[in-house]
């Protein structure tokens, strides 16, 4: 009988900080380059027009065993994905993701940040995680009784001036990643503290 090209197996999605990667196992074919084609449908398509599947913008076709599906997911609803293998004129059956993927399940990890002092100014530089992110930044002086201050830094606004400070004082900062599109935020980053140069002014 005619050899049938096996379908890719073990489809999974790895999603960290709203970057979504669909992965699957290779279809082994001796000394041949197998291509893969990825398609998706959102909840609307699956409910109202289940025959409609949309080719992934990045991987139709691809040689790799993974596909960046970030740009394909543009709503906070469950998405179905399917992959098939192609070798010359042969195409395998479709393999479908076992459970639909919803971007609200992405793993949110705190942003990398760099806290510096410029003269007497406390400045924070935050990792660019994309337009969907905002960063609640909490900062405080280590003076006894000092209050915490919060500033929300929009994506792309970094670096940001947080505060003009007292010479000789120590200021600490921590930040978290917030995504309104899914209504969730990460844990806080590790706290970073900097000491302002110069001597504390003697009390008059």
């Amino acid at each position, binding site marked *: 009988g005619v050899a049938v090209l096996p379908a890719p197996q073990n489809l999974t999605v790895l999603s960290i900080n709203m970057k979504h990667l669909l992965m699957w196992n290779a279809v082994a074919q001796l000394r041949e380059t197998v291509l893969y084609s990825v398609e998706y449908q959102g909840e609307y398509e699956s409910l*109202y027009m289940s025959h409609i599947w949309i080719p992934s913008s990045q991987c139709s076709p691809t040689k790799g065993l993974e596909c960046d599906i970030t740009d394909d997911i543009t709503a906070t609803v469950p998405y179905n994905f399917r992959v098939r293998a192609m070798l010359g004129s042969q195409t395998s059956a479709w393999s479908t993701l076992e459970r639909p993927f919803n971007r609200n399940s992405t793993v949110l990890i705190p942003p990398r940040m760099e806290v510096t002092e410029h003269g007497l100014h406390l400045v924070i530089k935050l990792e660019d995680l994309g337009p969907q992110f905002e960063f609640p930044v909490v900062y405080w002086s280590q003076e006894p009784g000092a209050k915490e201050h919060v500033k929300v830094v929009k994506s792309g606004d970094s670096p940001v001036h947080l505060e003009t400070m007292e010479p000789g004082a120590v200021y600490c900062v921590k930040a978290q990643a917030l995504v309104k599109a899914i209504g969730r935020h990460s844990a806080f980053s590790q706290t970073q503290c900097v000491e302002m140069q110069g001597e504390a002014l003697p009390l008059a």
Partner: protein
Amino acid sequence: EFRFGPCRVEGVVLSELWEAFSAMKSTVQTQDDITSVRLLKSQVLHNVSDAESCYLVHSLLKFYLNTVFKNYPSKVAKFKISKSFSTLANNFFVIVSKLHPSKDKDMLSISESAHRRFLLFCKAFKQMDTEAALVKAFGEVDILLTWMQNFYHL
């Protein structure tokens, strides 16, 4: 988030909807050659009170999901606008699923007022040839988004 009076909807980024519609606007609107008719006319969308807005947007978006978008796939594939169409349809789906217009009796007059506006839209839609009406309604999504923008808060 959207605030249609008492109805709140989070998790939808309005700029994503505009981006999606803008990507297909010229393709969609050039299919509509009946320029003398407007479905979302001013009597439907102007001076809508906050209290009415939840009822009206719920009716309009459900109509788009159940009638306009549902009957549009043949064009979607033909014009290669699947991705943008999917973005719009799935985000409208999210909004409708999060809208819960009040059923209180004391809101009856307000819901009826919103319903009269919606019926104006439906009447205009039904007076047209179905195919032409679908094309026009789809082309008027920018009018709908412009109105919805009034209720969007960053």
